[in-house]
């Protein structure tokens, strides 16, 4: 992992844009963390804070032709692919105004109109699906690519492994992003993944495997842009492995006695937002004031989202039986 990945210059507008998205994810997650502690948010909630550079570094290379599939830890991917944070927050609160009208919750936020094929409660659920969206793009010739995000734990699931083979055999415009945050629940990836790196599995499926510093937005962006360009050009799939850590527990409520110290270190020394800010202010591409303005703007946005979610109506009995089928 290195800090010195050569990179194509991104415009100021681009840089501000990606910073805004990363900051939005961070603010969203920190806020959900705080709100969960009050007891207002039901269910299982898995937070993405710390991993923002992955979702944003990848998705900033995508457009409306492209599809992503996510995991139980899906908020970051949703925001990075353009899902509305207000609808997301309302969904997490189980409101009728949520992305899924309150039927899905944190683990199932989706917005197909944005190419976001859903968070997924099943570890390894997403990789097969994006083989299909990639196939559709290929057959229709749209130039679209599809991305599956999945964790280190999911990299051991058969569905993930066989999807890599299928993507390679069908030569699909598909990207597999293994987000190795060191743990699957309380189980260390150094134990559960039998190869040194998840990326080492790529060779067995006939595709390039790239290890990326997942705390470094620019490293992610660079690796993803190369892989995505190749996929768009008909060059087939790539496996990218992000190495980093999550800032919160596996889910809200996790006491995390299985680890210690890592998070403090990562927050202080490796944090993707801090590193991004240091880099762009150092190069003079952005001023600290630009970033502060974004921070302030996002704080207001999320504050509004929470307020709106809390005030929004719950689904009603009329909603219980609808939308099981298009027509039955």
């Amino acid at each position, binding site marked *: 992992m290195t800090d010195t990945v050569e990179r194509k210059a991104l415009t100021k507008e681009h840089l501000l844009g990606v910073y805004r998205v990363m900051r939005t994810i961070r603010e969203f997650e920190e806020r959900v963390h705080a709100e969960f502690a009050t007891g207002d948010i039901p269910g299982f909630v898995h937070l993405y804070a710390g991993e923002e550079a992955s979702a944003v570094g990848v998705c900033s290379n995508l457009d409306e032709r492209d599809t992503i599939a996510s995991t139980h830890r899906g908020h970051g991917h949703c925001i990075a692919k353009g899902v509305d944070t207000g609808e997301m927050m309302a969904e997490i609160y189980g409101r009728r105004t949520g992305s899924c009208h309150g039927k899905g919750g944190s683990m199932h936020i989706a917005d197909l109109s944005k190419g976001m094929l859903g968070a997924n409660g099943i570890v390894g659920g997403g990789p097969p699906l994006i083989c299909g969206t990639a196939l559709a793009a290929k057959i229709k010739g749209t130039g679209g690519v599809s991305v599956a995000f999945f964790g280190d734990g999911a990299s051991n699931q058969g569905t993930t492994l066989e999807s890599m083979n299928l993507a390679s055999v069908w030569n699909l415009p598909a990207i597999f992003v293994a987000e190795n945050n060191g743990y699957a629940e309380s189980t260390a990836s150094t134990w559960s993944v039998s190869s040194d790196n998840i990326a080492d599995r790529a060779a067995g499926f006939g595709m390039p495997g790239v290890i990326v510093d997942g705390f470094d937005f620019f490293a992610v962006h660079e690796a993803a842009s190369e892989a995505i360009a190749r996929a768009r050009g008909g060059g087939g799939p790539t496996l990218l492995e992000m190495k980093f850590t999550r800032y919160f527990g596996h889910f809200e409520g996790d006491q995390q006695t299985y680890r210690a110290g890592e998070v403090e270190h990562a927050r202080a020394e490796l944090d993707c937002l801090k590193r991004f800010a240091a880099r762009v202010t150092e190069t003079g591409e952005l001023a600290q004031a630009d970033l502060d303005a974004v921070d302030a703007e996002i704080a207001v946005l999320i504050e509004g989202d929470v307020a709106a979610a809390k005030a929004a109506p719950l689904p009603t009995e009329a909603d219980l039986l609808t939308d099981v089928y*298009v027509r039955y």
Partner: protein
Amino acid sequence: MARNITYREAIHEALAQEMERDETVIVMGEDNAGGAGAPGDDDAWGGVLGVTKGLYHKFPGRVLDTPISESAFIGAAIGAATAGMRPVAELMFVDFMGVCFDQIYNQAAKFRYMFGGKAVTPVVIRTMYGAGLRAAAQHSQSLYPLFTHIPGLKVVTPATPYDAKGLLIAAIRDNDPVMFFEHKALYDISGPVPEESYALPFGEASVVREGSDVTIVTLGRMVHTSLEAAGQLAAAGVECEVVDLRTTSPLDEDTVLESVEGTGRLVVVDEAHPRCSIATDISALVARKAFGSLRAPIEMVNAPHTPVPFSSALEDMYIPDAQRIANAAKTVTGWSR
């Protein structure tokens, strides 16, 4: 113009006509292009029992071989369905659902509800089921009850070439995920099938024989066995009304209930294992909604609560036959309080 073709040909024709009509229809499965996925090879197989043979050359790029990775390719069919395609994926034998069920019941079946009505997943999964080919415990099951249990899925079980064609066309045009069950022992039966394209509605059972003494509700291959039993019973003076469900989900409750209201007696014939089966499902429906018309206990004829045995000697005893159905019908007609 109807002419006699086989159940296999009827399915093939439905696929071909829909592929012709709508270019978003694609077909995938193990050996569906018969090794044609590999350059240089030919359309050798067309799926293990030859149903898709010939489609590969007719629809270049739209018939895909797959590795043996049912989760990946069934999942891919589902993913493609959310992205504007109408994929027809072949799960060679329904017995293999155990390696890919998640994609079917947790993904395809739940997207629409879980995502608040925003997903449309028009995927069809064709699959072979049933005993009779001496294919033993892992290639002979009739697992449609498992799929019928799952909200969000539709389940289709055609008994004739005519129904196979019309229901498959309907399945492909349907906007929900559909499990399409083809009985392996029916591929070679023939029957009249119109050449032109037609779709048969889901949730409409067909009364394949009318009768006033006892209702036999059945599906799939057992429709034929039930008709055989009904023939024997007629000779013995018992008139059976035979109802072919055609789809188990949605279920045509009305036709079942009306028939039982007419006859007052019910036998349900189902090739699946007995517990939590279609037989129990229909029994429960009638015991709840037509109890007042019932004049006798409801009999079920199922395969036993055992895996499917290999030996011809055992498999022939295993599969419900006309004799057992006739006995059940006699039990209910002979019953008195």
